[in-house]
């Protein structure tokens, strides 16, 4: 085989994948950035839309609905991620021992993440149902009043948060358990011999050693929390009012119901910028902690 033919081979192997990515991913994103400067509705071709400059971006900030939906998104994401982190890491600490049935638990725990978000929404909508749902039935049979799970603005946000916690706590549990079980045994052994209590081991040894994985887990989860859409769509469709209208739902509605594609594109860009900042933080953090680990290793080798 000639060297010239060999040097073409990698391009031949890469070409189909690269072509698809350019046509169906990079082009759409560029298209969206362009569309965000237009006043464009779905019945027009993009060429017929009028150019409005930054109007879509600036008008969003004076739009009370957008601001409310942005606030709901921030509230939802920060609440679910912090509760899930506490529960997931806590459970991992508690169950970090060779217990029979751990494999079964882990398998069952990934089920909520594997089934369609639409189905998750469906299940919870049924459980929250005012008359046939299990929550109100149980409350009623115990002699309590029914709770307006999905029809009151406070409760509906709580309800979608509970559903998200059910679906995603296992993710954090599985990741932190993996991190825990790959900790250096020697450090834990030394702490135990020095008489550190269970709590002291957790606070001074385990948590600091797990920190790099925990931070990455936190950021991954945070990124995903901003992407949630289907579960909320099925459960509340953003209501009542705008109490559960998270940003990605607002984007979808602006595009399909209000038929303002330019505004929806501008909103998408805001969301994308927010997520890019999070990703950048994550990258910088991993780089920094890798560099620090390398320096420590070098120091210990020299010393």
């Amino acid at each position, binding site marked *: 085989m000639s060297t010239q033919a060999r040097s073409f081979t990698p391009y031949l192997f890469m070409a189909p994948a690269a072509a698809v*990515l350019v046509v169906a991913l990079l082009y759409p994103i560029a*298209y969206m950035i362009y569309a965000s400067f237009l006043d464009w509705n779905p019945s027009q071709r993009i060429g017929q839309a009028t150019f409005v400059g930054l109007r879509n971006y600036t008008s969003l900030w004076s739009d009370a609905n957008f601001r409310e939906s942005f606030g709901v998104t921030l509230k939802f994401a920060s609440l679910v991620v912090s509760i899930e982190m506490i529960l997931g890491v806590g459970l991992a600490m508690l169950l970090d021992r060779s217990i029979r049935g751990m*494999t079964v638990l882990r398998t069952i725990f990934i089920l909520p993440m594997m089934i369609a978000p639409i*189905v998750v929404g469906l299940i919870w909508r049924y459980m929250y149902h005012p008359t046939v749902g299990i929550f109100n039935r149980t409350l009623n049979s115990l002699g309590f009043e029914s709770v307006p799970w999905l029809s009151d603005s406070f409760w509906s946000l709580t309800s979608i948060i509970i559903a998200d916690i059910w679906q995603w706590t296992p993710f954090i549990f599985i990741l932190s358990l993996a991190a825990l079980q790959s900790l250096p045994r020697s450090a834990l052994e030394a702490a135990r011999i020095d008489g550190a209590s269970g709590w002291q081991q957790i606070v001074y040894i385990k948590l600091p050693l797990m920190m790099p994985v925990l931070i990455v887990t936190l950021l991954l989860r945070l990124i995903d929390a901003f992407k949630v859409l289907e579960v909320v769509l099925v459960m509340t469709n953003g209501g009542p009012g705008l109490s559960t209208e998270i940003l990605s739902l607002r984007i979808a509605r602006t595009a399909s119901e209000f038929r303002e594609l330019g505004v929806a594109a501008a909103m998408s860009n805001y969301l994308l910028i927010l997520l890019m900042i999070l990703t950048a933080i994550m990258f910088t953090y991993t780089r920094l902690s890798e560099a620090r680990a390398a320096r420590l290793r070098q120091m210990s080798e020299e010393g």
Partner: protein
Amino acid sequence: MSGVINQRQSPAFGVLMVILIIMAIGPIMMMIATSLKLDVDIMSSTSGLLFLPTLQNYETVLCNALWYEPAHLDYCDPTFGRALKSSLIIALVSTIITLMLGTMAAYALVRFRFMGRGVISMTTLLMRMVPPAVLLVPVFGILTFDFCINDNCLAGTYSGIVLIYVAMNLPFVIWILQSFIVQVPIQLEEAARMDGANPFQVFYLVVLPLIKPGLAAASIFTFRIAWNEYLLANALLDRNTRTVPVTIVNSLTGYDTDWGVIMATGTLLAIPPIIFTFVASKQIITGMTAGAVKG
């Protein structure tokens, strides 16, 4: 609470495990149970677990795919059966194409050292970041107005949505397959090349058979995304090509909800991912944790 004491099994942990398992699986079980109930049983306030299971809801959903005519139906609504077919076609085709393109690209990236692994993990992560909602506007615009041949546009067709799903899944698939290809001993490939195999033969006959676990993990992730996706499917597909998630949402907005039938549809939609989970939980967990633990 020192570790030494807790090495033996304490009953409290057994109880905790059981509670966790029930909490995780209970809601899913409830969906399946409801799908086996008649409307009367769902509405009655007494029975929770005591009911006579029936397949009637499934017969309603699948009426046009059955070989007999269900006795309880006056009219057969073909929506769900058709959607199931669309879902299967779209998910299977996009999985196959993604894997074909993904394995080749991953192989090129590993063996021909072109672009670093850093670039790939960066792209993967960037793609993970893009929410489907962000792709909604541009993909709608492009498939409706741009990608057309003589007024036949890709919007509403299987090809259009498959193209988007392939693009959405490729970065992750390439990234996860790389870690498997790196482990294939290069001596095997060199031996094959000595025997006169060309790069494509080396790839198809030597490398691919060795990375089957990786292929399994990658195909599960791809299939799952294409099978479960709602937003883009809703915007891009028309009446005849709609997938199951879209029909579920549509039937919910109707005035009165037939929970038994909807839950039967939901169960049908959930069955493939559930099977994958039990067959390949190890590969799935590897795929999930790889991103965070290895950066």
